[in-house]
């Protein structure tokens, strides 16, 4: 059994767990305040006040909502398929959460304040306990892990999230839920094509599938050489600007597909109130409903993170070389911009009709994305 214990890299596992905990809390807080921001911003757009009573300007509203969700009566209707009904919210939330291990929050080797002291404390403790650890906490990487298929991993996990919605729709044993589940599965499968094909243009520029590596490549021009401005991969000089054309096309195709993929307005057909009551989560209440709700916002965050990292340079920005801790601030600012865009669209656009949605996905976005790949490949060959 000693070989089993020796084969585990305890400092690495422990570090990863601590990072996961910190990032998980960060994402949870982002999601909670995205909900709050949504209600306040929509209120401004619709010329009313929104929640402003719990705490200063209503800032504690998310926690009040959470407590309400926890203590509400959890109703399980008689005719549901009990096992699947209970499993569905979990199936929807867990894959969404699993993506956060590849979020590139900030640059590598960030100097940790007080890192020198921490390193000494941990190493002293390990010699005292005879663990033989040798950790270096002077610098930290602001991502849990990175592997060479990071983007594919994200797509795989978001693809699994569909089952939560589909299973919820089927297990609820209600016609509104079933129709909502069917619509959402059809919609998500359709728009996944546009989503993944639009990303191919960026992959052609970057030459790698590793998310952290793609972000690192965009650090030229004092942190402003983002992929949407042509990126670095096509070499130096003005010629590389030509790559900006397919990148900008890809960016817009990505944005539209991402909004459809996360079932948000104007593509929120799976939960169209006027037709389907509340769609796939009609029969859900209390904490189970809250899990679907959180999963939706985590998915929104995930596509925002991807958009930020692939097109807008991730943590890159001005003065990043001088103050590396600006990295996570830039990163979160860009993510918040996309989250704001979601809310803004919700306050502005009406809902599409279902056939319009399908036609748009298959007859416009898919060919446009394919054409864009050809364009990107041609320009890449000409510029290199």
């Amino acid at each position, binding site marked *: *059994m000693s070989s089993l214990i020796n084969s*585990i890299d305890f400092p690495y596992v422990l570090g990863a767990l601590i990072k996961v905990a910190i990032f998980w809390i960060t994402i949870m807080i982002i999601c909670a305040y995205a909900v709050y921001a949504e209600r306040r911003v929509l209120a401004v757009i619709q010329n009313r006040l929104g929640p402003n009573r719990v705490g200063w300007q209503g800032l504690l509203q998310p926690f009040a909502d959470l407590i309400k969700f926890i203590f509400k009566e959890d109703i399980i209707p008689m005719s549901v398929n009990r096992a699947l009904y209970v499993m569905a919210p979990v199936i929807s939330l867990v894959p969404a959460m699993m993506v956060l291990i590849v979020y590139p929050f900030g640059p590598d080797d960030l100097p940790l304040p007080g890192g020198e002291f921490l390193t000494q404390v941990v190493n002293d403790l390990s010699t005292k306990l005879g663990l033989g650890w040798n950790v270096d906490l002077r610098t930290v990487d602001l991502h849990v892990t990175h*592997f060479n298929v990071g983007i594919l*991993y994200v797509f*795989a996990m978001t693809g699994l999230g569909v089952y939560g919605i*589909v299973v919820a729709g089927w297990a609820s044993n209600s016609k509104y839920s079933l129709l909502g589940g069917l619509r959402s599965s059809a919609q998500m499968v359709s728009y996944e094509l546009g989503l993944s094909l639009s990303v191919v243009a960026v992959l052609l520029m970057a030459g790698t599938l590793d998310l952290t590596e793609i972000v690192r490549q965009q650090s030229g021009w004092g942190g402003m050489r983002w992929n949407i401005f042509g990126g670095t991969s096509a070499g130096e000089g003005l010629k590389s600007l030509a790559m900006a054309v397919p990148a900008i096309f890809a960016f817009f195709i990505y944005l539209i597909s991402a909004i459809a993929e996360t079932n948000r307005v104007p593509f929120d057909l799976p939960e169209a109130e006027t037709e389907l009551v509340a769609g796939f989560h009609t029969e859900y209440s209390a904490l189970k409903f809250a899990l679907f709700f959180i999963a939706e916002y985590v998915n929104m965050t995930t596509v925002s993170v991807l958009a930020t990292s692939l097109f807008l340079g991730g943590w890159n920005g001005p003065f990043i070389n001088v103050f590396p801790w600006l990295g996570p601030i830039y990163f979160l600012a860009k993510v918040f911009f996309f989250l704001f865009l979601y809310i803004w669209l919700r306050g502005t656009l009406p809902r599409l009709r279902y056939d319009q949605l399908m036609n748009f996905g298959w007859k416009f976005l898919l060919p446009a994305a394919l054409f864009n790949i050809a364009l990107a490949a041609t320009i890449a060959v000409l510029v290199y």
Partner: protein
Amino acid sequence: MEQFAQIQVSHLFFLAFASLAVVAAFNVILQRNPIYSAIGLIVVMCSLAGLFLTLAAEFIAAIQIIVYAGAIMVLFVFVIMLLNVREEDAKADRQKYLKFLAVPLFLALIAEVMAVLKTIGNPAASETVPGAVETVAEGMFTTYLLPFEATSVLILMAIVGSMLLARRESKEETDEIEEALTVANQPTPIVEESSEEEVHA
């Protein structure tokens, strides 16, 4: 107990994923409810992806989930839900004699697996990861270009064929519907009826 002295975490992961895959595979064939079988199959796919991960073939693992669990199985579940497939009835009569075939077929399968296992040695650790994106792409577009292209044509043919079959049926249906509509759209009978009623009144 010699082997157990060399056990590592990766072995435990292998055992976990492998047993999960086997249990889920039994679930696929033993369940009467098609949606449970489909979910079992999804679990099988995901645990296979986990097995690929323990072999450091991350690309294959990701593709396994994207293609099988993310695309194909969604369509399966979609169809099961759309057609509202009921629980399968026990069809004892039809499969009465098939069960005698099961034992020899099972033995043949075991023999095959044993034969294959005998030929596989311990693969030597190579510099290039067999499941990396570059290696897969290189194989696909150089050595195996023709089989790859031929397969895509085959899949295209299957799609066109199914479209054709579906269309032929729906053509008759649309003709019927159009016929019914033209009959319904003739305005004269309604007017005559109402005028008759007025007369009677």
